[in-house]
């Protein structure tokens, strides 16, 4: 009895030691299966990623994904890729660091510069839309809305956008440089409500922006009610523009459709949401295409060999 126990103890301790030691010296074995990591169906990053690789149907449908996929959050996927040599996942570009390998997308490196100069493809635009000029409940609301959009293009606005994990467009002016053009902001606007709506993926950024901008513009009251990209246009210039849910400023986390073309000068972009596919540092893969990623996430490529031998 005692001998058996001792044997067991010896075996487990050897096993544990070996397990702690790891096996990184063996290198990358391409015959292993691909382990797919994803965000859950309510994630905006997932919608952006699946849209970017041409697999829109899978944005909110788990059944289309490869068998045995792991659902985790941004940080969970990032840390998993430091352990799992045979995993692949995606995170927002802002979270990328050197503990994992960010894959080139269609040959373009995932960097902020490449997003801003529009060469990196795995991204989606964050757009805004204003009401048509003159179609506001008050001239003050119109002036504040215009000032807000101007604020988006300043370096102050860009800092806030970057803080929230998105990539801001290039800007040179600070708010102090241009605030003289917006006289409304020198007045007391504490009685004026500006209503924001549209994409819920942009909600956090929009809230951070309005919270920062309100003190700079007469303490106007910001009301946020984000219900989805299609409501961005609908509730400012579309069918619901005069309804109970009408908004002053709407957002869409995708390009505006042809049916959503508004009055000239009322629509524009405030940021890019860039997503990057990541793998373990030991992985031999350096670059993927949208097609590759779609085949991985749909389960068509089961092992790394399938992908690397293409």
């Amino acid at each position, binding site marked *: 009895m005692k001998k058996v126990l001792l044997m067991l103890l010896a075996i487990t301790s050897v096993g544990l030691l070996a397990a702690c030691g790891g*096996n990184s010296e063996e290198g990358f074995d391409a015959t292993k299966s691909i382990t797919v990591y994803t965000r*859950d169906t*309510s994630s905006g990053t997932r919608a952006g990623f699946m849209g970017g690789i041409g697999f829109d149907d899978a944005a909110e449908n788990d059944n289309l994904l490869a068998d*045995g996929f*792991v659902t985790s959050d941004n940080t969970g996927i990032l840390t*998993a890729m430091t352990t799992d040599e045979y995993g692949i996942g995606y995170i927002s570009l802002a979270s990328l660091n050197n503990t994992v390998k960010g894959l080139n997308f269609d040959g373009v490196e995932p960097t902020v510069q490449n997003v801003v100069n529009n060469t990196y493809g795995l991204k989606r635009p964050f757009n805004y839309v204003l009401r048509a000029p003159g179609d506001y409940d008050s001239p003050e609301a119109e002036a504040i809305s215009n000032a807000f959009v101007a604020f988006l293009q300043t370096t102050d606005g860009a800092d806030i956008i970057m803080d929230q994990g998105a990539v801001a467009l290039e800007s040179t002016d600070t708010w102090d440089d241009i605030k003289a053009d917006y006289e409304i902001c020198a007045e007391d606007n504490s009685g004026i409500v500006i209503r924001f709506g549209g994409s819920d993926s942009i909600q956090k950024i929009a809230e951070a922006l309005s919270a920062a901008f309100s003190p700079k513009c007469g303490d106007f009251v910001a009301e946020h009610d984000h219900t989805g990209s299609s409501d961005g246009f609908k509730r400012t210039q579309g069918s619901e523009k005069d309804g109970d849910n009408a908004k002053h400023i709407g957002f869409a986390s995708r390009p505006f459709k042809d049916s959503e073309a508004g009055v000239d000068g009322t629509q524009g972009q405030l940021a890019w949401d860039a997503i990057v596919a990541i793998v373990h540092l030991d992985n031999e893969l350096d670059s993927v295409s949208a097609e590759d990623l779609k085949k991985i996430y749909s389960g068509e490529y089961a092992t790394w060999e399938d992908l690397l031998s293409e």
Partner: protein
Amino acid sequence: MNTNTKRKKRVDQLVRGLFMAATLLSASFIIVIVIFIIIKGITPFITDNDGLGAVNIWKFITGTVWLKGTAFQSNLYGVGYIILNTLYVAFLALLLSLPIGVLTALFIAKIAPKKLAEFLRTIVELLASIPSIVYGLFGSGVILTFVYNLADLFGVQSKGGNSVLATVLVLALMTLPTITAVSEVAIRSVRKDIEEGSLALGATRTQTNFKVVLASAKSGIFAAAILGIGRSLGEATAVSLVAGNAQSGPNFGIFDITSTLTSTMLKGLKETTGIDYDIRFSVGIILMVVILLTNFILNAVKKRVGNVNVK
């Protein structure tokens, strides 16, 4: 009756009323919470969910896939496999933590020198007060890597360590201090005369500890196990960081990814709306039923096991 006694009586009544009010308040909170969860939780089954149609209760309870079809456009939810997964990991965790916890408790209560026992008791209390998110971070930082390498050793390719085993290890770690603390109290409260009787009959210390002390304390140890199971079943944060949140199941392989009722509720909770949100309350009802049933059954078993019954 003089005025003094009258006043005392009035104060008595006042205090009684105050206590009564406090009791009613706390009791009513529980009722409000339960009613709220039940109302929210049965919504998906009795309304047509904005045109999707009511969720079928039978399919919900026996389902082997969390959601068939596209989120927000489908009502085909299922938690059957998740119920099995939850019970499976909770009992595996108990299998690991109960022996270790009871032996630790025995050591602290009967064997260790007084100073060391004091010290160990403090450590166990400290461990019990660590919040679950810390266990979760430890799990995702250390246990996942450990399980990944361990699986590799056995020639199994695990999913980054996210697995039944990782979940069980985290839960065992979390329930260990509770089990140790409660069993220690049970072991210490075993009557001295039973123990001395055993020693006087010529039994050794070890024989006495295992055959008399533990046997006498088994009711208390069982209570510790029930508390441990309760904590395992209800743990959400730590589990969701290491389980992998399997979409379908049941998942019994120790290196397979899994999902529990709580991790399913938590997944995407902060970003979802409509039926996909309400259904999480339904999962909450299922969880409450599972915990109640488990406690009920274990308590029934505990009664049959009885208290002092030294063979």
